[in-house]
């Protein structure tokens, strides 16, 4: 193979995270002047693969070849200098500063005045404007970034990549926060870059877009490369099948729950935020495991956070046991015997510097106040110890700081925290995220057991086998709306994926 055929080659890349094989022998070849799409489910390893190129991760195995030269970047700066740029999924500009300051951040042009160097603002403005004009972007380089829409910020970052003279631009889910018109504009820019000979690596799970913009598609699943195909030879059905095509083995415990009688009823619930959830209607029965599926950006977390009083709704009603309720804070949600295990364990779950004991009793601490006003520590410790044992949390003692436990055990502690509140309705947002396979099974068993005892479970999951394996019914959301509610027994990964991408 000649070195001029591909601008970027990744050969036999492997990457391990503690307990997870994130990438397993992945090979990718990208030709200049093409759009190469990488598709796969959440967690398939798409972003991880490209972060290995961009110097954010270092691959454990395999080689990266750029323009025929083997490379290994220790930092993103090295990658940028070598001609690779990546537009991250979560854009992180400095909002309070101007467009051009963000544009030149880390490489401000300077003028020398003897020993003093002064940042050359005129040059910053002019060069920035030139790049914008070339891409036909209508952005004033002097405006503050917080004045820009998500789409404009993204365009700014793409222009920034171009200004690095990048030969490869990686875009990670670039359309996740864009409207339809903005997507069209993005595609116009991408085609223009393509004409200039720049290779675009386009990470997405939106099937339609892939067919519109890409020349080649690499499909990934479970950290492995399923195959690379010219887009013209593909059909959406084939891509979806390849994306999800794994077989379910005995990964889930048997369920003996019997759903009966509606407990929670949600009607036409609509968020105050635009582009968030709207017109959500569903009901959940006592003893039911109700799965919520969808892709990143489907507004599932936003929906359950609204149910729990963490977000505001514009209209719609929520009823518990046939009575209409208005919940505007977690304090109220707890009074209605609801519990919420949030998605971001570090951000909204654990108290890292506190003990396992304190982490466990924090949501039900009011119950352990003695008549004297002091805490009844003995009872608290006894109850916490009991539930920690039941959930088989591996911790040296109750006094251990929670940050010293593994992710899976931290998760179990937070499950314990909520079980201690004796809830009737348990909402679990990605309960097994970042947890190793063995602990996953234990958490599934806990969930199945709770449902058997008549608790109502609402479970958001981005892992389709988990949804299908655990749920009595599955509600699928797309772009903030319900696109279907499937019976757990009839649900297939293909049907869920079709519903999850229906409105895109």
């Amino acid at each position: 193979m000649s070195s001029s055929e591909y601008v970027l080659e990744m050969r036999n890349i492997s990457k391990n995270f503690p307990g997870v094989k994130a990438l397993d022998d992945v090979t990718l070849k990208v030709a200049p002047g093409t759009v190469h799409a990488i598709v796969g489910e959440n967690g398939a390893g798409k972003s991880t693969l490209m972060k290995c190129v961009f110097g954010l991760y270092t691959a454990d195995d395999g080689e990266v070849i750029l323009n025929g030269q083997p490379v290994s970047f220790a930092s993103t700066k090295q990658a940028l200098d070598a001609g690779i740029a990546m537009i991250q999924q979560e854009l992180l500009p400095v909002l309070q500063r101007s467009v051009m300051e963000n544009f030149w951040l880390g490489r401000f042009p300077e003028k020398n005045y003897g020993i003093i160097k002064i940042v050359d603002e005129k040059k910053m403005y002019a060069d920035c404007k030139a790049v914008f004009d070339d891409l036909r972007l209508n952005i004033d380089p002097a405006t503050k970034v917080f004045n820009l829409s998500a789409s404009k910020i993204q365009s700014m970052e793409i222009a920034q990549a171009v200004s690095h003279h990048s030969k490869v631009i990686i875009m990670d889910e670039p359309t996740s926060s864009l409207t339809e018109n903005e997507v069209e504009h993005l595609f116009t820019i991408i085609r223009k870059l393509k004409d200039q000979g720049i290779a675009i690596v386009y990470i997405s799970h939106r099937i339609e877009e892939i067919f519109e913009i890409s020349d080649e598609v690499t499909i990934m699943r479970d950290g492995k490369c399923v195959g690379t195909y010219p887009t013209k030879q593909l059909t959406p059905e084939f891509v979806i099948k390849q994306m999800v095509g794994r077989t379910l083995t005995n990964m889930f415990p048997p369920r003996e729950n019997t759903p009966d009688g509606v407990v929670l009823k949600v009607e036409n619930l609509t968020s105050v935020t635009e582009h968030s959830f709207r017109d959500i209607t569903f009901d959940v029965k006592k003893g039911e495991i109700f799965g919520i599926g969808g892709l990143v950006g489907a507004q599932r977390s936003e929906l359950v956070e609204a149910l729990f009083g963490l977000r505001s709704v514009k209209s719609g009603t929520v009823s518990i046991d046939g009575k209409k309720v208005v919940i505007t804070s977690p304090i109220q949600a707890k009074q209605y015997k609801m519990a919420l295990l949030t998605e971001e364990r570090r951000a909204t779950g654990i108290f890292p510097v506190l003990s396992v004991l304190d982490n466990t009793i924090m949501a039900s601490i009011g119950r352990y106040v003695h008549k004297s006003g002091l805490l009844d520590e003995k009872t608290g410790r006894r109850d916490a110890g009991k539930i920690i044992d039941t959930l088989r949390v591996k911790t040296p003692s109750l006094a251990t700081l929670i940050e010293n436990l593994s992710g899976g055990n931290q998760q179990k502690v937070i499950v314990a925290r909520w079980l201690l509140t004796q809830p009737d309705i348990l909402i679990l947002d990605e309960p097994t995220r970042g947890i190793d396979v063995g602990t996953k099974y234990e958490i599934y068993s806990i969930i199945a057991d709770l449902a058997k005892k008549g608790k109502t479970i609402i479970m958001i999951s981005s892992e389709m086998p988990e949804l299908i394996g655990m749920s009595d019914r599955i509600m699928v959301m797309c772009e903030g709306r319900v696109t279907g509610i499937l019976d757990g027994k009839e649900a297939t990964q293909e049907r869920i994926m079709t519903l999850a991408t229906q409105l895109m």
Partner: protein
Amino acid sequence: MKNPASTSWSKRINARSIREFATKNAIILVLAALVLVIGIVKNGFLTPDNLVNIMRISSVRLIIALGAAGVLISGGVDLSAGRTVGLAAVVAASLAQRPDYASKIFPNLPYMWVIVPILAGIAAGLLVGIINGLAIAYLKVPPFIATLGTMVIVWGAASLYVDRPPLGAQPIGGLRTDFTNLGTGSVGFMPTIILIALIVYCIYWVMLNKTQLGKNIYAIGGNLNAAIVSGVNVKKNLVTLYAIAGMLYGLGGVLLSARSGGATNNYGQSYELDAIAASVIGGVSNMGGIGTVAGVLTGVLIFEVLNNGLVVLGISAYWQQVVKGVIIVAAVAVDIRKYSKKR
């Protein structure tokens, strides 16, 4: 669950265990070293009189630092502490002047039980604390800004309070002995002021460790969002916390005026910085969620031993400032190793 604590006690003493002990107790070792070194160099330092004197001064500082430390643990900061001490001092002093004293703030001041000026001083602090708490919890003003504002307001209020035309702002003197006894008297062998500080210390320890409020404060400072999700009533807890802190500053002001036998509107100036410094020296995290009352006590003692020791050693007032500043940064740099080595 296994219990490694039982095995760790039986571990033999070796170089590693000594290093671990030193890292864990660095601050106490620093205090011990300070006392020893100054004591060896200077004869007058380790006398009972001087040590009791240090503890008297530390008593007021401890009470104030406990209030400030609680706020730090909640993830906030209270800059109004010092000026609140000053306000409470002038309020209490103005109500505790001898009936026969010539230039009284209130010329017609009747004779009142001694508890009245004490409670008035504490109430003044409570008021400031409640205002802080409401501004922070309900108006969402960041603690740094909210308490910066009250700091300035309270200084103005204290100055207005002592500003009596035609004489203008004046020191308040001629305090009753039953009032000043709080600061200079004794109960048996025990100096009253130290006794009061000990009682406050114990109550505060119980509050932080044994009550719902205390647990919630650690949680709010440790992860505010997780506290909200867990259904902690963050607003109520914060208002209560700042109110308690205000009462402690108030008590500190009362004791300060009792100990010195008077008060001016400049009492308590920059005490908030000393309180914050003592807290962080004692291992309270300015990021919130971490800190113990024992640590605060150690921090205060280090600070006051230094203050006293540097004077005893005859070091110039200017150099004292430099040394204190270095100690603050160095102590925290040492203490932070306890937490940072894990990452």
